């Protein structure tokens, strides 16, 4: 494992980010089975506990979508069109298991279509209730059981309680380290910039959890002590909305007078912000966590109160974020055709502006080719802050 000229910390993260599937392919060669999954709802704990390497299936803003157009309409979420396009082009041809999920319409329908055209030895569609109360948790736990059974089939062994508990605490440790990393952005300027964090987050979604935790620790130690920290900028930015998985995007933002401080996205805080409660039957904790604690507008929140209270219920965590990190501007990132975030836009604006935070909403095309025109928007936004 250890060798002298092995990259560490940020350099290592960049390396993994640049060659996302390299480690997976290596481990595959060593006989490990790889399971790819959609969005942050299929529990990685179950995969880890069965000795699989879970990897998050992402799109590629640099790769023009071509093949997918034969299967998915262009009016669909561009991120999932891109992900499917890569799948059809064989980018993920090494995975042994495919776990689709009912994260949103696009994820759901793409999951079905994926399993029709991209034959993976084992695949499963994880249904996820839209409500998180009452019987919903039990129903979701039932679905998790089917996921477990299916993966046990692939692993050729049963999932024991102990291994699952171990996996949960390993991933909880990862969550803790990620939060620690985010806290390093409290000072102004932050100790670590958006592109660096993104590289780390993407990396830990592509390698085994132990390696991920080791990487996180390296990065934290490195960042705490390094001299060359990011420049001070006018904007301390909270990003809310659709995910960002390409540093060309974060670079563009941070070269427009804005420092990215915290990302409330599916490649940001969302998968990591809460630990899984360690329950008697571990699946209970897992079910509760993914259904109730992974913040995403795809899960419906009760609204039997006034609109104001409703906003408070749904977004108070953003207020906490803003307070803790001294946020002075919010970028609402909407990948074109993302309905679940699209419907939230006026509400989340109402809420954040009531906190005195300016909000910039951009519907973007998930393509590096169409990034540059956004520069003026970000610069203008930083001018509204400063």
């Amino acid at each position: 494992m250890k060798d002298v000229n092995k990259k560490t910390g940020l350099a290592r993260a960049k390396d993994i980010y640049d060659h996302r599937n390299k480690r997976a392919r290596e481990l595959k060669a060593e006989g490990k089975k790889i399971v790819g999954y959609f969005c942050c709802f299929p529990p990685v704990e179950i995969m880890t506990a069965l000795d699989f390497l879970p990897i998050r299936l992402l799109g590629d803003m640099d790769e023009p979508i071509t093949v997918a157009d034969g299967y998915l309409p262009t009016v669909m979420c561009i991120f999932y069109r891109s992900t499917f396009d890569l799948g059809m082009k064989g980018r993920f041809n090494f995975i042994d298991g495919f776990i689709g999920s009912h994260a949103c319409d696009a994820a759901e329908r793409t999951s079905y279509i994926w399993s029709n055209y991209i034959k993976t030895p084992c695949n499963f569609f994880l249904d996820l209730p839209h409500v998180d109360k009452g019987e919903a948790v039990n129903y979701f736990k039932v679905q998790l059981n089917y996921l477990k059974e299916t993966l046990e089939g692939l692993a050729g062994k049963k999932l024991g309680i102990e291994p699952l508990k171990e996996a949960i605490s390993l991933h909880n440790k990862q969550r803790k380290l990620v939060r620690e990393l985010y806290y390093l952005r409290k000072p102004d300027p932050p100790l670590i910039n958006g592109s660096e964090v993104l590289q780390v987050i993407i990396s830990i979604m592509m390698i085994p959890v132990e390696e991920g935790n080791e990487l996180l620790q390296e990065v934290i130690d490195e960042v705490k002590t390094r001299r060359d920290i990011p420049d001070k900028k006018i904007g301390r930015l909270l990003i809310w909305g659709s995910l960002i998985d390409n540093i060309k995007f974060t670079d563009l933002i941070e070269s427009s007078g804005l420092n990215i401080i915290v990302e409330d996205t599916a490649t940001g805080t969302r998968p990591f912000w809460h630990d899984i409660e360690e329950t008697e039957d571990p699946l209970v904790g897992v079910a509760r966590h993914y259904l109730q604690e992974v913040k995403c507008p795809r899960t419906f929140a009760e609204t039997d109160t006034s609109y104001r209270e409703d906003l408070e219920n749904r977004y108070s965590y953003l207020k906490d974020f803003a307070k803790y990190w001294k946020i002075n501007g919010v970028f609402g990132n909407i990948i074109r055709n993302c309905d679940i975030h699209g419907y939230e836009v006026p509400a989340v604006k109402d809420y954040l502006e009531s906190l005195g935070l300016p909000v910039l909403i951009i519907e973007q095309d998930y393509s590096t080719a169409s990034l540059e025109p956004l520069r003026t928007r970000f610069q203008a936004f930083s001018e509204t802050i400063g």
Partner: protein
Amino acid sequence: MSFIVGLDIGSALSKAVIMQDGTLLSSGISPSEGNFLSAINSVLQEALGKTKLAMSDIDLIGACGLGASFIPHSFHKISEILCQSRGTSYLLPTVRTLIEIGNQSSRIIKITRQGKVADSLVSDKCAAGSGRILQIVAKVLKVDLKDMGQLSLKSTQPVKFTTGCAVFLETEAISRVAEGASKENIIAGLHQALTARIAAMAHRMGLEEDCVITGGGAENSGLVKIMEEKLGKTLLVPDNPLITGAIGAALIVTEKKVNLKKEENHAIETGCHC
């Protein structure tokens, strides 16, 4: 011994053919230049002239294209997709997939052994995917449309365009020139951008051999080459890729003539705008 005229009155070019019992007698091509009526007359004259025929000798006219409604004679209007497929398989019977890069739009048409349409896909929302942008950029670079193909083949590093919009592409081309990018690289980059869009359509349809490319774009060897790379298929080009539509119109109207006896209810359009 009836003489049939086929007309394809496109936004850029008007084309006419004269056919007799399924054989091509003559053809004519002239730019539409916004005056369809005069373009129609001149292509008709050109085609008639070559055959020593007069309008009075013509039994039937079949027509397609944007400007067909300007035809000052009675004619049958036929969908461009049908004309393209029938005309192309007349010239190249082995065609199964047709890629037409026209001035207004690009089309992918799947064709049956009988030269009939099996499936079709058209880009018509905006000019980004149409051959029009070739013209536009040719004007910017002051090169002849015909030479673009050859020039692009000399490219060392194709320019990357950041916009899809044909109009902005023009402006972007201008500033690339200013930054000292070579004509070759700009044209090659343009071809890249255009073929990417059309390839995406082609993928959507799925390609069956033989693949044929027609329309103005087919005369551009550079474009065809990049398209072949992008699709991983060899593309056949008819000797005269411009008149496939007109031929198709003539052939289909001949079939219709037969049917006409059966179903009288078939409407005959007459140009009435002039």
